[in-house]
Every structure is written in C-alpha cells, then in structure tokens.
C-alpha cells in the first residue's frame, strides 16, 4: 500500500516511521504551503475550519504524488473533527480521485470493529513487529517533543543557531530506523541545544508567553504563521501548552500523572467554565488560569476561524484576563490570515506586555 496522511506539525515523522516499519510504502504529503491551503479552501466547505481545509489540500497533494491509501483519524464528537474523514472522502471522490481511505475511529467500546478497521494497516505483521513499531513511534514522538521544548527555551539566546540545530536534529530523526540510533541522535542534539543556554546572560529575565488553544493551529507552524519562531525572535520565551505526547498520555495511555494534571486544570477552570465543550476549549480556559497563577506574562490563544469549542473559550477568556490581570491575545486564523497583519498584532502585544512588566517591576 502507498500510504499518505494529513500533516500536523512534526507528527508526520512518527507516522512515516510507523507505516514504514509495518512494511508500507509511505508518501508523506509535501509540507503545508500556500498552495496546500488554496487547494483545500477551493474544495472544502466554505465555513469549515482551517484544519479541514489543510487536510484536503494535503490529501490532494499526496494523491497527486502517487499515494493510494489515506489514513485519517476519526472521533466521537462533539467537535467537527470526528466527521472530517467522512466529508473529506466525499470531496476527493467528487474530484475524481481513486483511493482507499482508512479511518481510525476511537473504539467506543466496540473493540472488534476497531481492530477490523486497523487490520489493513497491520499488513499481516506479527504482534511483536507491531509492538516494536509502536514503541519506536512513541520514542520518536517523545524525542521530538523534548527537543522542541528545549528549542523554545534556548531560542531566545541564539535564535538562528538554535533553530539550525533543531532543524538538523529533526532531519536526523526523520531518517532513524531503530531506537538505539534515535537515542544517540536525540541525546547528541539535546547536548548541542543545551550549549546555547549556557552562554545566556543571567541578568536578562525574558518575557514568558504561553500559547493555548486548538492543537492543530498550535502544532502546525505554517498555519499559525510561525508564531513560536516569531516570538522567539523577539526575545520571548514561549511555552506551548500541549504536545502530541501529552495528548497520547491523556487519551491513549491514561498516564496517571497526566490524568492528575487534567484534574488540576479542570479545578482551575471551575469558576469560569465547568464542563467539557469539545475539542480543547476547556483546556484553553483552565490552562490560562494556571499560567496566570504561575505569573506567566501573557497568553496567546490560537484557534481556527469558526472553531466551536474555542469560541466558547474565547467568550470566557476576557473574564480570566480581567480577574488575573493577564494579557490575552486571541488569534483567530484562517486561509486569509497574512503574515504582516499578524506580525503587527504580535509586536504590539509583546510591546504592551514588556511595558506592563517594567511598570509593575
């Protein structure tokens, strides 16, 4: 099978490794560009959210490059994401592409159906091989997340150097085939990245800005117009509120530490929003409160235009902002968002926070 899948930040590296280990030919879609988004916006429903449009663009480009099978995640609502794959299949069918689509819906208690859905992906591999592939993927995801966390910490000291080093590491991880090599590459890159923080100027207390919101917009650098890199260039320490490994810990592995963390943010959100609203709306509110308590200087809330859960969060965040005196900037992005406009807003936001910090200090 020639497999392709949608992009979401660095996750394609892990997925590529997974499907290659399972013996498929993998054709990852070309990186998200203007063209991807234009293709998606042309064929996807008008006021669907941006992730759907990017997905459609990815699939079209992937199929053009020769992929035959699309692998896509499903869901159980109430966020639209759970029905993405269904509408994407119809769009591509109407465009005349010939393809298979494998939709991985959560089991919802029906494990036989779940395993049946997954069977073609297994490609007749034995349990041990599947296990090895999965553990390798898990290690890759963890390594990538760790490197990214470090990058965000050190990029303020040497922006270009840190990014160069990070990109080199990511490229190396793309090509690793086993855990030993992965470990070596990762530890080497970690050491290199750590060097940047050693030369830091200790008198400099950097501004800290946390990014909360919808995960696709947070993880895919092209659609959020390189928000983290831009902020880093302004000397701001960025904190990304969620990583793919966190999501897996919470929703697949049920890691107790992460479950506890969930309880903590739920408790923090209680006075503002005391219920699940789909997607990551609850997280956005709860984590903003937690960041405010941790004396983070500001929060940037990113969401795709028309995102339902985040609109609920967006309506509530002004109250959090008022109560904790926490500056919040909401960025609602879609295919029309342009770099220059965004840059102006971010610059203004950072300037205001810097001013505020100096006045209060």
């Amino acid at each position, binding site marked *: 099978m020639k497999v392709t899948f949608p992009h979401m930040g660095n996750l394609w590296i892990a997925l590529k490794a997974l499907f290659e280990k399972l013996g498929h030919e993998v054709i990852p879609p070309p990186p998200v560009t203007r063209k991807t988004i234009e293709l998606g916006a042309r064929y996807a429903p008008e006021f669907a959210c941006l992730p759907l449009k990017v997905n459609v663009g990815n699939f079209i480009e992937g199929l053009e490059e020769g992929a035959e099978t699309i692998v896509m995640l*499903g869901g159980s609502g109430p966020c*639209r994401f759970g029905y993405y794959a269904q*509408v994407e299949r119809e769009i591509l069918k109407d465009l005349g592409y010939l393809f298979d689509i494998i*939709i991985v819906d959560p089991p919802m208690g029906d494990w036989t159906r779940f395993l049946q859905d997954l069977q073609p992906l297994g490609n007749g591999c034995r349990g041990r091989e599947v296990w090895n592939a999965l553990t390798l993927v898990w290690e890759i995801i963890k390594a990538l997340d760790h490197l990214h966390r470090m990058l965000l910490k050190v990029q303020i000291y040497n922006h270009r150097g840190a990014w160069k080093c990070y990109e080199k590491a990511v490229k190396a991880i793309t090509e690793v085939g086993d855990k030993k090599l992965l470990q070596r590459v990762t530890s080497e890159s970690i050491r290199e990245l750590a060097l940047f923080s050693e030369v830091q100027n200790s008198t400099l207390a950097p501004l800290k800005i946390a990014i909360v919101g919808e995960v696709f917009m947070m993880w895919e650098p092209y659609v959020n117009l390189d928000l983290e890199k831009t902020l880093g260039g302004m000397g701001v320490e960025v904190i990304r509120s969620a990583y793919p490994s966190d999501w897996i810990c919470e929703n697949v592995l049920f890691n107790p530490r992460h479950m506890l963390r969930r309880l903590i943010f739920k408790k923090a959100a209680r006075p503002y929003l005391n219920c*699940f609203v789909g997607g990551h709306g609850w997280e956005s509110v709860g984590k903003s409160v937690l960041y405010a308590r941790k004396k983070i200087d500001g929060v940037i809330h990113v969401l795709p*235009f*028309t995102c339902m859960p985040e*609109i609920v*969060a967006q*309506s509530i965040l002004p109250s959090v902002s008022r109560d904790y005196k926490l500056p919040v900037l909401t960025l609602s992005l879609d295919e029309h968002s342009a770099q220059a406009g965004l840059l102006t807003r971010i610059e203004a936001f950072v300037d205001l926070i810097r001013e505020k910090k100096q006045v209060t200090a």
Partner: protein
Amino acid sequence: MRIKIGIPRALLYYDYFLLWSTFLERLGTEIVLSQKTNKEIVYNGIKSAIEETCLPVKVFLGHVQDLARKKVDYIFIPRYISVEPRRFLCPKFMGLPYMIKHLLPGIPPVLNVEVDLRKRERQLPVEMYRLGKLFTFNPWKIRLAYKLAQENQKSFKKNILQGFLPENVYFNETEKNKALKRTVLKNNQHKNVLRIGLIGHSYNLYDEYVNMNILNKLQEMGVEIITSKMFSEAEINSGLKRLRKDIFWTFGKETIGSAFYLLEERITHGIILIVSFACGPDSIIMDLIDRAYKRAGVPCLTLVLDEHSAEGGVITRLEAFIEMLKWKEQKNESYFSPHGQPVDCPESPF
C-alpha cells in the same frame, strides 16, 4: 408574588419550550418570554458577542438582554449537552450558560439545569426534580408537574410532525390554519403543485425574523413546504442508512436524515438548506447533503444566513429557484442545473 422566570425566545425555545414552561408554571412560577426577534434584539446580541459566533447564539444573547430589562427574577438557560443517547448538541450549547455569564455580566441569576441524556435516560427527571425543589417542597407536586410536562412535550412533537408551527402550538393558535401541508405531501396528491423540503435547525426555520419569513414567502409563491422537523424518527433513520458513520450531533442527524429521506423517496421537487454562517456542524453536514443532491441531479439551494443577510437578496434567490423548478417541471426535462454545475444538455433551451 409569584417568581418570574424569563425564557429567551431563541435557540431551543423552538423545541423544548413547552416542556419547561409547563413544568415551571405548574410549580407556581410565572413565565416571561422575551419579545419576538427584532432588529434591536439582533443588534444587542451582535454587540455583546464575539464576532465569529453564529447568528443564533448572537440572537440568543439579545433575547437574554431583553429579559434582563423586563426585570425577571431568574433567567432560564438550560445547559444542553445531549438530548438523546450517543449524540451531542453543538459545543456552543454546552458552554452557553457560561458564555452568557461572562459576556453579559449583571443579568438576573441564571437558572441552570443540565440536560445530558447521553448515557442515561433518567438524568432528565433527576435534574428536573433538583430544579423543582427550588420552588416547592412537595415532591408529589414536582412529580405531577414533570408528568404533565412530558405529556405536553409529546403532544407538541406530534403537532410539529403534522406540520404546525411551534409558536402556534405554544399559544394554542393551531386553528389559525398555519399548518404546513404534511398530509398532502405524504399522499402525493396535487401533482401540479411544487413541493419543497426546507432543511435546517428549528431556530432558523421557525424564527421569522432570522429567516426573513421564508415560510410565508414560499407559501405565497404557491409552494408546498415540508420542513426537516416534520419527519418521524423512523423516516430519519431510514435516511441515515446512506451514511457510513453514525452522526454524533442531534440536529445534524435530523437535517441529514430528512434530506436523504427526501432524496430517496423523491417526495419533493427540490430542497432549500437554511444554514447560519459559521455553524460548525452544518458546515460539514450541509456539504454532505449538497454533494448527494448534486450527484443525484436534484435541485438544492443553500441559503446562508447571518446578520448581514438582506431580505431583497433572499427573495431574489428564492424566486429564481422556484421559477427554475417550475420551468423544469413544465418541460419535464433535466435541463436544470442542480447547483454549481453548468447545464449540460445537447441543445440549449435558449
């Protein structure tokens, strides 16, 4: 003095008003409704909401402000998570009471009830009992009120299925002969009358201001209408068979089920989809319906409503759609472009 409870005339008012009003009135409270949607309400709603919220929620905010001005003691805003097993409502309904609280500080206290029938059916009576205890100490009174409310809701559903408008049922104006022609449609009698399916959410279909009185306009044009609210569970389920994955929104199920049922049975000559701009579930559902109709070659018109929609434009589009349907029927040919396609025929009719 009786406690005044305000119910906004928006969103799920068009589905569950009778349930709540019967229950609350039986417990000795007075129900105050907000005005019918008008320019001022919409304006107030837009002013207080986040820009990219959908129109129905903005309208709801306007209604809440209207109630606040009417000096009610409580405003009744239930938190609907799910009204049937395995299905949700839109995430905005889930967060609605919280959104209201933060967007409109200083309104009267909100009576908060949670409706979540996703896992167990018994959740509703328990929750209603909790609500009832605020007004009376007598559990039998609550039980009686609950029973009556359920009965009224049932008969309301029956009336809606027959084609009465919700507001006419609420205020006992059913004799006003405003019923849409469900029975006629079913029997397929008048062959020469144009029949149209109106697919959308109840708060768009039945709010005359928001949809610019589309029901009346169509009726004046001599069209028979069936709305997506006028389908029984069985009919909707038979329509849903076309889907590969069960749909997890209740409204989505109703709209797509009824649209596919109409497509299968060919009861109507075409359908009109009424969508509010930026409606999350509908962005996907309506696209699926549109594609299915396009493939089958059945005419389908999508009307997207937002606070900027103008009546003139809507009328023009409706008239054009109806004219084309009539033309298609008279010629009895498939020259009609379903939607977004060029007319593909050997010899041009022009």
